[in-house]
């Protein structure tokens, strides 16, 4: 016979856990909505910028100007990996996925670089940072504070520095590993090449902008727009990861709340059974006691 008191204690502890997880779920849901709105707001800007760039890209291809953002000859020597994780846990496999992918990249792709000490990391988010530190990898800079005020102006400072490091040949390749936001329940793990910029911008190749006036001229506009679109790409990755984090946390907490509810149901049933058994026992004792007195 299960102990009545033990069950009661357990029940109340599970109940308070459920209260916490369900509150966390609500918080995550409201933050998710905000984060999602910002991605939606960024989209028209990003799309338009991309459209202009695609149309202009031919101008660069036709003239033989050197694209300073393009890939350099020979394999990448010095590589920077940027990991976007969260500062807080309790969000399911969100951070673990990023870390697993990073390990895979290290062993499959960048073995040579890591042996030569030419593989560097920039964790954005405490969870990724902790793991990288434990693995004793080369951490270049840490930027956990960026999530507390995620605006374009703030991320621009960082993306400009990364672009600059590429231009000064400190790195030959920069990749971002992050969770892309699909919807509240689905995050897609993505590894994106930030730099070099691929020579071929995907899109229509027909002369979209043949009848335009350009000021100052096509080449210089492209040169100015490429860093702009890189900054947007970086910002978008951060917003995506931020929204994905809250989505993952909401799902995880929803799951936890459901599990707690089920546990409470089981425990309540157990408690009632035990209580009933105790009452039956007591009744039996009383009745048999009375019988004995009658005799």
């Amino acid at each position, binding site marked *: 016979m299960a102990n009545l008191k033990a069950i009661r204690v357990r029940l109340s502890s599970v109940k308070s856990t459920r209260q916490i997880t369900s509150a966390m779920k609500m918080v995550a849901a409201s933050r998710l909505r905000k984060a999602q709105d910002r991605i939606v707001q960024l989209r028209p800007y990003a799309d338009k*910028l991309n459209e202009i760039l695609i149309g202009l890209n031919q101008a660069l291809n036709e003239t033989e100007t050197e694209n300073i953002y393009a890939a350099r000859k020979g394999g990448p020597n010095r590589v920077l990996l940027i990991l976007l994780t969260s500062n807080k846990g309790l969000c399911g496999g969100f951070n673990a996925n990023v870390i697993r992918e990073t390990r895979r990249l290290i062993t499959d792709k960048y073995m040579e670089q890591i042996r030569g000490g030419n593989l560097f990391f920039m964790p954005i988010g405490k969870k990724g940072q902790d793991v990288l530190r434990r693995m004793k990898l080369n951490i270049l800079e840490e930027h956990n504070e960026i999530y507390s005020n995620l605006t374009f102006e703030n991320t621009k400072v960082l993306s400009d520095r990364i672009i600059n490091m590429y231009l000064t040949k400190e790195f030959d390749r920069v990749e971002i590993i992050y969770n892309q936001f699909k919807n509240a329940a689905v995050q897609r793990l993505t590894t994106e090449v930030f730099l070099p910029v691929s020579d071929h911008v995907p899109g229509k190749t027909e002369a979209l902008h043949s009848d*335009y006036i350009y000021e100052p001229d096509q080449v210089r506009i492209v040169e100015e727009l490429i860093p*702009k679109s890189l900054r947007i790409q970086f910002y978008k990755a951060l917003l995506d990861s931020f929204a994905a984090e809250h989505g993952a946390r909401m799902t995880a907490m929803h799951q936890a709340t459901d599990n707690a509810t089920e546990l409470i149901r089981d425990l309540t049933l157990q408690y009632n059974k035990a209580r009933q058994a105790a009452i039956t026992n007591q009744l039996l004792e009383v009745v048999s006691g009375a019988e004995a007195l009658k005799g």
Partner: protein
Amino acid sequence: MKIEIITPDNRIYAGEIRSVRVPGRKGSFQVLKDHAPIISTLDRGPVIISDEQGNEVRYEITGGVIEVKRNRIILLADAVI
């Protein structure tokens, strides 16, 4: 003539206008109805809109790019101060 002013963080302005003056890289210029298609990068400076009623709306941008095509203007601003 329609205009949209967009920054990465939000949409600043959208609507019908009479004209707009922007700080182009090669000097400030004004866009009126039926302007030829143009793409221009913009410097830091004022964007002055004259709306349908002739009211003046003014924004200070830190830079950006403008596209004008068939009486549709899209202004991508880096930031609005």
